[in-house]
């Protein structure tokens, strides 16, 4: 579904890579959390999947397409298979809920009949039936994010990318959004979610990929926001028990795990995380 082969990303004027030789594979139907401090490369990762950026090195395959060879003319058609949700919702303020969702379908040339059928369906699925004619500013944050999710999935994408979708929401609203994402995942959509919300990650117990300084330092099949699985973290942080609920069942060590660099990078982060 998504495969990164030794992908590095450098931004101009910054000698430190945003991603440093990342190799990983995300399979169809998986629900993956992407965690790590700010600047660890999560957003770069998502932008690379979307082909908003080109990797400096390495190959990216998404949905069986090699992104490096995808011509810019075909990028729009490629993106129709991806849904994206952001922390700040990015709704069009002057359009109603219905029109916001319909806009996606209109601009990719769907027929009016299809739109009239698909939009109410998806609004019902995200729990906004009956609010189709509201304007975004008349809705709560959670409802606005539901509109954004509806817009992202109305075209039935194979992959849903979510960049801190609960970052602006309170815990109980976040839980509602996660239930929705879980349901979307259950219907077969691969979900890749970057987040800082430890509670959500701990509760969901899904695959967790942790990035630090552009490196994957953890890739757990079913883990929490922090974990005991990497021993070096406990050594560096005595007495600070990671907030893991439930013992991880299986641990996939990151391929480029380098204990020294992990120790250097993770110690201040744990401290900051409290």
């Amino acid at each position, binding site marked *: 579904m998504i495969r990164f082969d030794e992908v590095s990303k450098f931004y101009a004027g910054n000698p430190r890579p945003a991603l440093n030789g990342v190799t990983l594979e995300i399979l169809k139907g998986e629900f993956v959390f992407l965690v790590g401090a700010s600047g660890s490369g999560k957003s770069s990762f998502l932008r690379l999947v*979307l*082909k*908003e950026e080109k990797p400096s090195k390495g190959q990216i395959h998404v949905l069986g397409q090699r992104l490096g060879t995808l011509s*810019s*003319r075909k*990028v*729009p*058609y*490629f*993106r*129709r298979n*991806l849904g*994206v949700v952001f922390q700040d919702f*990015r709704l*069009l*303020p002057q359009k109603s809920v219905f029109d916001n969702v319909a*806009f*996606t379908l*209109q*601009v*990719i*040339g769907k*027929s*009016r009949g299809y739109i009239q059928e698909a939009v109410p369906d998806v609004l019902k699925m995200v729990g906004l039936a009956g609010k189709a004619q509201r304007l975004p500013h008349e809705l709560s944050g959670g409802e606005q994010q539901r509109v954004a999710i509806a*817009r992202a999935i109305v*075209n039935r994408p194979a992959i849903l990318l979510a960049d801190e979708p609960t970052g602006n929401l309170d815990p109980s609203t976040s839980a509602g959004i996660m239930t929705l994402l879980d349901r979307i995942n259950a219907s077969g959509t691969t979900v890749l979610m970057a987040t800082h919300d430890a509670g959500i990650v701990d509760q969901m117990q899904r695959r967790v990929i942790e990035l630090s300084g552009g490196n994957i330092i953890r890739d757990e099949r079913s883990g929490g926001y922090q974990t005991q699985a990497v021993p070096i973290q406990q050594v560096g942080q005595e007495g600070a028990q990671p907030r893991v609920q439930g013992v991880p069942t299986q641990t996939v060590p990151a391929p480029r795990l380098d204990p020294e660099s992990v120790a250097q990078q993770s110690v201040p982060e744990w401290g900051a995380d409290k």
Partner: protein
Amino acid sequence: MRLRLVLSEVGSGLKRNLSMVISVVLVTFISLTFVGTAALLQLQINQMKGYWYDRAQVAVYLCTDTDTTGNCTGAKATTAQKDQVEAQLQSSTLKPYIQKSYFETQQDAYDRFKKQFADSPATEFVQPSYLNETFWVNLKDPSQSDILIESLSNQAGVQSVVDQRGYLQPIFSVLNAASYTAIGIAVLMLIAAVLLIATTIRLSAFSRRRELGIMRLVGASNRFIQTPFILEGVIAALVGSVLAGGAMILIVKVFVRGYLAENFASTPFVTMGDTYVVVPLLIVIGAALAALSAGVAIRRYLKV
């Protein structure tokens, strides 16, 4: 469905940027008016050249009693000398270039002089003997007058050989200068128009950047994204070029045909037919330039 969506986007874009759109209209209007004027001036010059050069003759002036210029020695050209010049004109070397030639006596020249300068006091004291006897020569190709000048200038009894086209040259120089000035101004104004259209489109795109961002995110094709903006630029420029076309028609109809052609009947002027060729050209230029600059301006927003 999509066409309606595109058109409504165009409409809202034009409304939102009305002041910029008006300035685009005015600048294209003025610049294309200059382009049209330059084109019509060139047509006018060509037409006048064709008309006058066909009528321009080469004059072979013969000596009079008082002439000491050229080959003259203050004596009137003799009959033998006249015959020699005539023989030259009829010779096999010059004959192929000559359409027709005729001889004008001093009395003929005097009559013509009196008629031409009827109002001038000069007619009072000019005598027929002051005027040159002349061979008037019409050439098949007016630009080959050099041949005639070279072969006849040194003949005895010939005062000078003059190509009348020389008298027209200053007129054409002035017209040419006017036309080049118009072209220069037109080019400057067109640059301004192109930049203004690009700025307008950027502004329009900027005010719609949320929509553009979402369109790109959900996979709207590049063509779908850029079409409304290009149409916006083209429509504004089209209004300007139609105005310029109208101005051209008005200028030619009222000033050239209505005033110049009435008052200077002997000179050919550009016709309405010429204008109807220039006007569509203006409109095409306006639309093409607008499409080009809008297309370039919007490209930045399509980068993926």
